[in-house]
């Protein structure tokens, strides 16, 4: 794959070594302008934060090494355990819904429809509208007594419509709906850009062959979108697991602690300023929680890297099978811990969602394999 490798096969070890040095210098020359800023401004503070997770740092004084004390405290804390469960409860449906709807929107709005520019702008509008206004309007729409949503539900014959953001059972589904509604346009943009990279000729050839729309999607669009899908699923998963803004403006973690997620917990233990969750300034403790959130996100990211590599047959597979299996097992363990703890329907529901998720990814792999053969 390496483009800078000259075509001739004859290469002495010395030349290979020289080439590698040349390539390293070349690669770094490209990366350096961004990396230097990134390393200083982001990487160093993050490494410092990782260190703080093992201290009692309170932002103002000197940190003292406390070993695993913060993690033990997290494990004992019922609010944190609930926050982990609720993070999964938000993230998994949100990832699936947003991903699917964004892709569908992109395909629909990639066609020649009159006024397509307007519809695209409309789909992107929720993302650019101020999140404060969104929180206000959705809260109004969901208002149990006066809200249009429940007025509609009553009208179609639902006797006891849900309390949405003022009910501990329904607040999270309400957040998932608003989150999906807000972010689908954002990921639609990325899918739209990805769709442009698929050569038109492939579609025309398929049409000549008489392939149905669904088959064209399966055999041309989906494989062609692979780099975009990978980017979108990684970003979407990370952003969903660290969801914060939406929860802060919509419910502030309430009612009770029913919409506490990990990043809200982190906020409350560090710099929080909201009235229900004043910041306690326990930055060491908050860093420990951040580290756990980081590992949850990282597991999902590495899993997606693996699936991506597996589905790309042109590239050699570099991931050893045991590592892949281990990561899958770890992800499942975290998920079942979360769900086992969770509210009511939890356990089986999560497991089912997880199976669907992985099944989806595996099918993706198989389709690509078949196409390549």
């Amino acid at each position, binding site marked *: 794959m390496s483009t800078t490798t000259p075509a001739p096969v004859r290469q002495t070890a010395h030349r290979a070594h020289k080439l590698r040095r040349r390539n390293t210098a070349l690669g770094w020359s490209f990366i350096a302008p961004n990396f230097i800023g990134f390393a200083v401004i982001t*990487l160093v503070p993050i490494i410092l934060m990782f260190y703080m997770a093992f201290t009692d740092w309170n932002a103002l004084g000197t940190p003292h090494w406390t070993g695993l004390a913060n993690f033990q405290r997290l494990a004992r804390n019922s609010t944190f355990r609930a926050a982990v469960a609720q993070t999964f409860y938000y993230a998994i449906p949100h990832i699936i819904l947003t991903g699917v709807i964004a892709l569908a929107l992109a395909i629909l709005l990639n066609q020649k429809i009159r006024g397509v520019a307007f519809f695209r702008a409309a789909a992107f509008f929720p993302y*650019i509208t101020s999140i404060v*206004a969104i929180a206000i309007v959705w809260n109004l729409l969901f208002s149990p007594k006066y809200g249009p949503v429940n007025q509609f539900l009553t009208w179609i014959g639902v006797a006891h419509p849900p309390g949405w953001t003022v009910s501990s059972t329904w607040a999270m589904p309400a957040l998932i709906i608003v989150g999906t509604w807000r972010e689908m346009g954002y990921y639609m943009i990325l899918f739209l850009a990805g769709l442009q990279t698929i050569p038109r000729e492939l579609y025309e050839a398929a049409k000549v062959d008489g392939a149905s729309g669904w088959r064209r999607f399966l055999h041309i669009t989906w494989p062609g979108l692979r780099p975009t899908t990978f980017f979108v699923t990684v970003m979407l998963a990370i952003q969903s697991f660290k969801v914060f803004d939406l929860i802060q403006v919509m419910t502030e973690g309430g009612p009770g602690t029913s919409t506490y997620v990990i990043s809200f917990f982190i906020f409350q233990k560090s710099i929080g300023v909201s009235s229900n969750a004043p910041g306690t300034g326990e930055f060491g403790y908050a*860093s420990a929680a951040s580290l756990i959130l980081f590992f949850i996100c990282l597991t999902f990211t590495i899993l997606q890297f693996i699936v991506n590599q597996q589905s790309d047959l042109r590239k050699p597979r570099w991931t050893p099978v045991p590592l892949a299996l281990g990561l899958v097992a770890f992800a499942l363990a975290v998920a079942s811990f979360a769900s086992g703890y969770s509210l009511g329907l939890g356990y089986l529901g999560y497991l089912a969602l997880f199976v669907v998720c992985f099944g989806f990814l595996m099918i993706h792999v198989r389709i690509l394999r078949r196409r390549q053969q």
Partner: protein
Amino acid sequence: MSHRVGKAILYVLLVVFSAFLLVPFFWMIMSSLKQNLDVFSVPIRWIPKVFQWHNYVDVWTKADMGTWLKNTLLLSTIVTILQVLTGSFAAYGFSRVRFPGRDALFLAYVATIAVPWQAYMIPQFILMTRLGLTGKWLWPIIILQTFGAFGVFLMKQFFETIPEELSESARLDGLSEYGIWRRIMLPLSGPALASLALLTFVNTWNDYMGPLIYLRDRANFTIQVGLKTFQADPQGSSLDALLFTGSVLSVLPIAVIFLFGQRFFIEGIATSGLKG
């Protein structure tokens, strides 16, 4: 015939769907025309009793809307240009040059996205202060927003869809790697560059926490920070109507940019005559 009916139904659905997406914006416009204490009421009042058109004058005369807009526009433009340039440059290194440690470095880039900002913003602020970067015009935010992993990751994914053969033939024609980035990769990544530019622009435009912490001088306020000055603490009196007047005005430039810029998403590779 059925084709036509299908199309009509599609349009109706699209229009209903769009209306549903624009509800909050509609509410924002209506609230921007109310009196301050009429914005929130039970039950909801969607249309103002008396339209307060003067809010759209007040927001310019009673606040520094002009300064805020100027700063935000400047900030977003600089960040977008730098992000697109350094991001696509680094992405070329990650996608087309093979060297030891490349994949690990890339994973480190992506992994940092997973760290919640609240947890490391204090160490970051201390670091920025030690480097003497705080309190200098818009620089802290430009630096903070430019060097992110997002642009690198996005552009790397798109560069991978561009066939190797093109670079190969360019190399035979004597182009350097930098020349390939400039003359082959960038022109062929139109839609990706357009979406990266758009998303970076919007994110910088709407960023609130970063500018709030780093831009303390009123002369450097961005629009999101400026709008917060309409909100008092729980004990005071907020200018809620003016807040939404400002919010409407802050959304409009982005909407315009999007409407005119969106055609770039469908042009690019597909029409550039590329034979895949």
